[in-house]
């Protein structure tokens, strides 16, 4: 029992350590690369264009590359525009260009209840407040991002608790701390490039557990349906026998 508890604590510590260290390292490296070369911005545009239908790609590849180049060479504004295109613009346009209106409404309803409302309520509004307050620091940005990573470890933990029917000690308060801190990070005026990178990676980290959980759920659902299909239809067989 004690060994199992120790194992859980150690794995938890490893995850937390990874979330902190990896987050700070990745944020620092990406921001440095983008400040020097602007490569992150260009890469983001290329990724964003892939989301669009094939016939629209050449136009927007050229148009958005021009936009990012036109935005300057300081590494701040281009990256901000590229992030905005990759995270918000391209997915929206992919829906707009591909789906008929009825399906667009359904997708809009689903997405409007999900990530955007989360971002607006917990990121955009507090970020404005933080921007007005003028909070800015590299260290703060790195820490905030790592808090966000931490919060997703916590979310994954809650899922595992339910799935495995076991109770773990998860850093629940981190979840509540993460959102306003991330909001501060994304709203800092002077370091938008760094905070933009943080936001982008944060969203990726947020989506990764969700995607993996969705995949697990889908796989289990498929297995259950297969099992149900293989089982002989007892009730209907009895009815048929009775009828004959």
């Amino acid at each position, binding site marked *: 029992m004690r060994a199992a508890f120790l194992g859980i604590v150690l794995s938890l510590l490893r995850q937390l350590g990874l979330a902190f260290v990896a987050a700070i390292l990745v944020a620092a490296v990406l921001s440095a690369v983008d400040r020097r070369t602007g490569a992150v911005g260009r890469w983001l545009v290329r990724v964003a264009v892939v989301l669009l239908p094939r016939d629209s790609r050449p136009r927007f590849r050229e148009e*958005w590359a021009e*936009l990012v*180049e036109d935005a300057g060479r300081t590494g701040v504004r281009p990256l901000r525009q590229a992030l905005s295109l990759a995270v918000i*613009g391209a997915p*929206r346009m992919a829906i*707009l260009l591909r789906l008929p209106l009825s399906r667009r409404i359904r997708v809009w309803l689903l997405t409007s209840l999900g990530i955007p409302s989360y971002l607006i309520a917990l990121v955009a509004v507090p970020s404005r407040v933080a921007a007005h307050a003028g909070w800015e620091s590299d260290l703060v940005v790195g820490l905030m991002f790592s808090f966000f990573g931490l919060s997703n470890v916590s979310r994954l933990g809650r899922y595992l608790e339910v799935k495995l029917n076991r109770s773990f000690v998860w850093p629940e308060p981190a979840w509540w701390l993460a959102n306003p801190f991330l909001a501060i990070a994304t709203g800092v005026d002077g370091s938008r490039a760094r905070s933009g990178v943080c936001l982008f990676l944060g969203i990726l980290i947020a989506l990764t557990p969700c995607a993996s959980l969705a995949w697990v759920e889908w796989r289990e659902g498929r297995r259950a349906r297969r099992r149900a299909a293989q089982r002989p239809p007892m009730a209907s067989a009895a009815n048929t026998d009775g009828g004959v």
Partner: protein
Amino acid sequence: MIRLTWQVQRVLEVLLDDPREEWYGLELIQETGILSGSLYPILMRLERFGLLESRWEDIDETVEGRRRRRYYRLTGEGLQWAVRAMASRREQRLRLTPRWEPS
């Protein structure tokens, strides 16, 4: 048809300032204060409804030392629609604004 969000209104305001003028992406972003991720879907939607037209700039990129830009402008139909839409929105806003009268 098109939801008149504050962002769409902002874009229309800028385009209506001088309907004959052509605008490219970064100019519109700077003028409206809207980020590219929100601006391009709006432009795309307006274009699909025939309210906006766009064209590539005709330049020699090697001579100019930059890529060609894509310019946007309201169509005739778009101009009429934008004027009507903005007027009705102003009317709505006036109706909703409480009028304070001195006692």
